[in-house]
């Protein structure tokens, strides 16, 4: 594996231009005062309540996601390039979703094997033939992008079912504004604060045809103990909409309604932060107490918008991911602007053999997994890990894909021992309505806090940084 591209130092000879101001700032600060600022930042996060609940730990335990005070900087040229690629990709994914739940042209054209849909739990049979309002499935996408060189950006993963993390993008900026106002006087950083308002507008542009008056939008959360509850409450607050749980909602006279102090009131758009499976015990998992009985019947009749649409999970399925270049090309008629990471599908015999032969250089991921659970990073794994994993691969190859260990770019973080490079990725958030695609200039930069680690997931100890897109 070649040494990683450092976004501050590039090849080490000179500071890259976008980081010159950052370097000058860091040189002018002394370590104790930066440490004090870092403590202040943590206190601020605790006070605001920007915490996440850890699954499997004692109930109600709240943790902070480590926050690093050094911003990650992206130039406007780089950003424009990324945006074009994102727009192309998200439009294609939306078209793909419509297609596979309708006439399946992509299968007929011989590009996607039918087996990729059949028996795939992420392919929601209930969605076949359903027309989501405005033909929008992917109201919000969080696309994970990694950088390997000055000009090389790859999509590592598309988060389509319930993309999360945008509250950290917003709160990281708020924290930086409070901690280091002088940085924003000296640097022209593009603002991101209107994300919630724009999301609300985007959702209102996607209402069912039956809506005549001002639409009612609300956010559906699984509740207080969900790991992302803070984000749900935060977004509802910022968007000025109600935060509801399943027991606040009910189907009344064929429409979705929420229980207000004055009785039931119709809901037109449901921004759901709940897995499809739990959405409606009558149509999906019957044991779910988090959802709303009959919700899906209302949806099928086109009387409520659900964002993102049920069944979008198929598009971020890791087995489908490997077809993404073909998918983009099929629906856009253009070459993909953002590259995919080369991916081996273990379900295919030759490819499985390659993976087994080269396992110590590859990253193996579960097809249906997320959050960095159940994966193997070949170069970092012990012999025992590898031999255990090989057994799993041979037993259930269809559950795995493999990718080369790409060297994620590094950005300096502030550690107790001073500045040190750490690997990062980037999750920009893309909003889509029938009117337009909107991408707020920024995103969530996730950073692996320990030396050499490539795992940036917050559930695995990863941290975050403020992400700056500079003005031209």
């Amino acid at each position, binding site marked *: 594996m070649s040494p990683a591209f450092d976004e501050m130092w590039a090849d080490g000879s000179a500071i890259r231009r976008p980081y010159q101001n950052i370097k000058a700032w860091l040189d002018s600060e002394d370590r104790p005062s930066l440490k004090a600022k870092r403590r202040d930042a943590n206190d601020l996060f*605790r*006070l*605001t*309540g920007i915490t996440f609940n850890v699954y499997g730990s004692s109930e109600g335990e709240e943790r902070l996601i480590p926050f690093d005070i050094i911003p990650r900087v992206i130039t406007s040229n780089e950003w424009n390039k990324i945006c074009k690629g994102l727009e192309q990709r998200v439009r294609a994914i939306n078209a793909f979703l419509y297609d596979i739940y309708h006439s399946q042209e992509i299968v007929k054209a011989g590009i996607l094997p039918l087996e990729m849909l059949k028996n795939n739990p992420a392919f929601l049979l209930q969605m076949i033939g359903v027309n989501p309002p405005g033909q929008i499935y992917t109201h919000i996408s969080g696309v994970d992008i990694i950088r390997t060189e000055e000009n090389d950006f790859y999509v590592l993963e598309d988060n389509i079912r319930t993309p999360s993390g945008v509250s950290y993008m917003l709160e990281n900026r708020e924290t930086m504004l409070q901690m280091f106002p002088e940085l924003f006087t000296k640097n022209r950083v593009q603002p991101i604060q209107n994300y919630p308002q724009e999301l609300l507008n985007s959702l209102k542009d996607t209402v069912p045809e039956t809506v005549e008056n001002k639409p009612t939008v609300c956010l559906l959360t699984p509740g*207080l103990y969900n790991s992302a*509850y803070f984000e749900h*409450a*935060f977004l*509802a*607050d910022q968007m000025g*909409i*109600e*935060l*509801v*749980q399943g*027991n*606040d909602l009910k189907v009344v006279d064929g429409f979705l309604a*929420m*229980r*207000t*102090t*004055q*009785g039931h009131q119709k809901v037109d758009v449901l921004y759901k932060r709940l897995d499809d499976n739990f959405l409606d015990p009558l149509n999906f998992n019957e044991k779910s107490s988090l959802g709303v009985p009959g919700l899906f019947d209302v949806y099928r009749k086109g009387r409520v918008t659900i964002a993102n649409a049920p069944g979008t999970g198929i598009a971020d399925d890791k087995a489908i991911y490997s077809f993404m270049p073909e998918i983009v090309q099929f629906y856009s008629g253009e070459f993909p602007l953002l590259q995919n990471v080369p991916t081996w599908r273990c379900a295919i015999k030759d490819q499985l053999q390659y993976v087994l032969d080269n396992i110590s250089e590859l990253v193996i991921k579960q097809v249906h997994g997320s959050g960095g659970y159940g994966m193997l990073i070949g170069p970092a794994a012990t012999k025992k890990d590898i031999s255990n994993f090989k057994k799993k691969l041979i037993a259930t190859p269809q559950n795995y894909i493999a990718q080369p260990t790409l060297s994620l770019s590094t950005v300096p973080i502030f550690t107790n021992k001073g500045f040190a490079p750490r690997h990062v990725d980037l999750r920009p958030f893309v909003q889509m309505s029938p009117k337009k695609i909107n991408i707020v200039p920024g995103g969530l930069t996730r950073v692996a806090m320990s030396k050499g680690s490539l795992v940036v997931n917050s559930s695995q100890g990863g941290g975050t940084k403020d992400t700056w897109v500079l003005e031209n």
Partner: protein
Amino acid sequence: MLGNTANGLFWTYRLLERAENMSRLIETGQRIALTRLSSSDEQWLYVMQTSAVSEEYEKQYSKVEKEAAVDWILRHPENKSSILSSITSARQNAKMVRHALTTDVWEAINGSFLDIQKLLKAKTREGDLPLIMRTIKQSAAFVRGATYGTMLRNEEYDFCRLGTFIERADNTARILDVKYYVLLPSAKAVGTSIDNVQWETILRSVSAYGGFRLEYGHEAGPDDIAKFLILDKRMPRSLIYCCDILKLHLSSLCSAYRNKPPSLSQIMQLQNRFLTHDIEAIFKFGLHDFLQEMISLFGNLSDQIEIDYRFYE
């Protein structure tokens, strides 16, 4: 506005008021214990009875002792109604309705919770008591100030205030009822001045020791204390004051929603029947019976508000 949100706001403020009232009782208990040589640990039973935590305490301990009692009320993990559990649940409710609170109010509640939780982590030592009490009192004032200064005067605010004042009315009635016998006109013979330890306890429990003396003078008797805490409209913890505020906010909800639900009629009936007479009439009716009646009516009112505004269904 969601019924569930109204519920969350109501209980956030109800539980915060409860925690504050309990801390005032502890403070009173401690003050009396330190300044009155005649006082005994038995007075902690009064404190626990007023906070309705004595029954559970007696299951755990064979006798009433100051150290155990204070720890029980403040933070004992087995006490589901301790000050710490009340504040924890208040904050949990606030977290649920975070989007209906201003940032200032949320941060005041969350920050207070974090401070108090830290202070009450381990068993309380007597030396730490002043700091703990001060922190709880300041937190209560902080949340109240943030609420007063930043919340819009809309339905959300109405539900917050309803929670506060139902709890407060109930608390004042309980404080009086636990010691009602020392307030009867016949008790005049027993104590001769406001110096009476029983009276001091009652007045301090509602932060009104100084205020009462100032308004009623040193000659005042126990019946004046009853009058002060039941019928004096200047006293922000008196029953009449609390009921006025409850009616104010129920009426305001009424005009916002253009309807007249049973809870409004209930508070008006309660005021007409019980708070339009003078204190002599109340004594004649029977102070204990009167207070029991009030406590049960406050309970009914709280239930009716839940129904009228669809807290649960």
